[in-house]
């Protein structure tokens, strides 16, 4: 979770936007939100005008694109809108949120209806293309949200024409939920791991009692419920989520299910699992240590309310969900409804994560067998590729800045625009770590501007190998500023870096409740087994 921050939201639309102001309360745990409702109908003027808000929500119903039936002119209007938004993004910071067009075409002529449906899809496609090419654009699925509610319950046609407010309150609530999700996905760190129980969750039945062959996991009810859950988990894995399993079973029984039954999930789809008779909270804690992830990265799914309560009570940071196989209509919408799994997009880094964490587990095995820590670290053959001011790393650098809490000297958050500005005004270093077990991707960021190291952070998964000190050494040498200043600003989570600068050749200048300031003296010692490759 990111630190609470001030966030301004501007609304403009061809409908009265005031009821959308309630989105602020849905974001209260993430930001102190202020709302401004801009003049109704002034879409082009607002988009072409100065940026006044961190987030601009542009809500358009179908009447902005067409009068009675979507056609080529509506597609052209959408393209015009996309051009206006793109031009604004070049000119001004902030995020723009658009919406799919909530409209059900009707016609007395079948072919005309098909043409309308196609045109409507093309209008939406223009918006999706825009979001694909512009990181700072989101498109919420207003049409989908209102369809789930039922268009008859969602629309108030009399109000649309009399008051420019076409939605029932329930529809406004549904839209506000989508807006809040879209904004929250940009503000908070996504949970990374889904830990799933096995018996009566991954499959129906208890493997140790019923036997592998009698487990329900197939294409008929009730086995289809478990098959579908596995398919959903597999899809989540494809979207960058790590899968783990914890189960109270003999390990050989658990493994046998994967070798003897044809199921969507294979054993190696899980980055790690624990099959034993230990409390599940202990096993999840152990998984967190193995993966070098905080418990607040974890989601736990189990069919047993007792296990859910056990984990919830002992590991309050873990988000727990009951998987009730007897209510498939709820159980199979469970994963889609978990807000903390949502993200604006999935980077290549996210998708490579499964392999990276598997590599981490292998490193731990090697560490256990090495004669000494130095032998172990030297055997990893670590190379750190450090790029300075590389615009190609902008997205990943911003993502890392906004989700790293523990090894973070200042916990200062930046938007993508602010990182781009820092690249122009100083040095933004992105460090990618590679060792014999694989490419960990960009795991370290340093920002130096105005003679000060204003940000220095490392992903936890790369810690414990002196990589961080070697990167700092490289940054100090590159900057060539003998008087480089630095700062440690304490937060609730960054105690681990409290003495990092003291330990790496920086001299304290001042100390107080706001933290400590430093001046570079000799800098960090060289760590010969870590090779820096400047890019």
């Amino acid at each position, binding site marked *: 979770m990111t630190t609470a921050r001030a966030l301004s939201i501007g609304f403009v639309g061809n409908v*009265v936007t*005031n*009821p959308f102001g309630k989105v602020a309360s849905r974001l209260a745990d993430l930001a102190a939100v202020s709302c401004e409702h801009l003049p109704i109908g002034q879409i082009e003027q607002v988009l072409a005008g100065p940026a006044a808000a961190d987030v601009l929500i542009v809500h358009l119903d179908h009447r902005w694109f067409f009068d009675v039936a979507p056609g080529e002119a509506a597609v052209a209007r959408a393209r015009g809108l996309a051009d206006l938004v793109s031009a604004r993004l070049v000119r001004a910071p902030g995020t723009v949120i658009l919406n799919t067009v909530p409209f059900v075409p009707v016609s007395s002529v079948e072919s005309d209806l098909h043409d309308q449906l196609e045109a409507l899809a093309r209008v939406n496609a223009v918006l999706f293309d825009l979001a694909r090419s512009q990181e700072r654009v989101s498109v919420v699925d207003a049409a989908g949200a209102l369809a789930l509610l039922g268009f008859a319950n969602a629309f*108030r046609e009399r*109000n649309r024409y009399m*008051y420019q*407010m076409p939605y029932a*309150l329930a529809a406004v609530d549904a839209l506000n939920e989508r807006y809040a999700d879209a904004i929250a996905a940009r503000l908070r760190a996504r949970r990374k791991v889904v830990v799933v129980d096995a018996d009566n969750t991954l499959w129906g039945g208890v493997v140790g009692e019923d036997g592998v062959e009698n487990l329900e996991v197939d294409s008929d009810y009730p086995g289809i419920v478990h098959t579908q859950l596995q398919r959903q988990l597999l899809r989540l894995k494809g979207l960058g989520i790590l899968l783990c399993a914890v189960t109270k079973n003999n390990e050989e029984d658990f493994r046998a299910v994967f070798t003897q039954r044809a199921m969507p999930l294979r054993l190696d789809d899980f980055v790690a699992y624990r099959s034993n008779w230990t409390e599940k909270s202990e096993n999840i804690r152990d998984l967190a240590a193995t993966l070098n992830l905080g418990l607040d990265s974890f989601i736990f799914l189990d069919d047993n309310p007792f296990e859910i309560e056990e984990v919830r009570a002992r590991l309050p940071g873990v988000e727990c969900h009951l998987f009730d196989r007897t209510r498939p209509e709820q159980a199979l919408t469970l994963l889609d409804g978990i807000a903390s799994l949502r993200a604006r997009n999935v980077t290549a880094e996210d998708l490579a994560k499964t392999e990276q964490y598997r590599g981490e587990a292998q490193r731990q095995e090697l560490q256990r067998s090495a004669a000494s820590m130095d032998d172990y670290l030297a055997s990893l053959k670590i190379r750190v590729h450090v790029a300075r001011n590389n615009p190609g790393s902008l997205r990943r650098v911003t993502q890392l800045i906004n989700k790293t809490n523990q090894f973070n000297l200042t916990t200062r958050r930046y938007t993508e625009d602010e990182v781009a500005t820092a690249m122009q005004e100083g040095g933004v270093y992105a460090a990618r770590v590679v060792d014999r077990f694989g490419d960990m991707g960009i795991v370290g960021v340093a920002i130096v501007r105005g003679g000060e190291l204003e940000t220095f952070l490392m992903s936890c998964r790369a810690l414990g190998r002196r990589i961080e000190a070697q990167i700092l050494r490289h940054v100090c040498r590159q900057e060539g500023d003998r008087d480089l200043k630095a700062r440690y600003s304490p937060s609730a989570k960054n105690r681990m870096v409290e003495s990092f600068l003291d330990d790496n050749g920086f001299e304290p200048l001042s100390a107080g409740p706001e933290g400590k300031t430093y001046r570079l003296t000799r800098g960090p010692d060289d760590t010969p087994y870590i090779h820096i490759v400047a890019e």
Partner: protein
Amino acid sequence: MTPPTSTSSRSESAAAAARATLDRLIETWGRPDLSALGPEDDLFDRIDSFAVVELLLETESEVEKTVGHYVPLADESILDSTRSPLRRLQNWFDYVADAVARG
């Protein structure tokens, strides 16, 4: 909640729902000055047209919950500065009750 059955009790409940909705919105809008309004007072001059739309939307929803079905409240008189029932607060509650009575 079980919807009231007789027409008069439905109307009374709807009027009460309209009052409760206004009280809630006064809090949402951060307009404690409106809490002091009595049944003879003018609401129309004290809120803008967007707030009127919000009041209408919220009242429709609350009435729907109270009487068990959707009752359209929109009418061209509401935003009419001379004819609006919001010119006298009690008229607004009566207007809502009448709309429910008419079905």
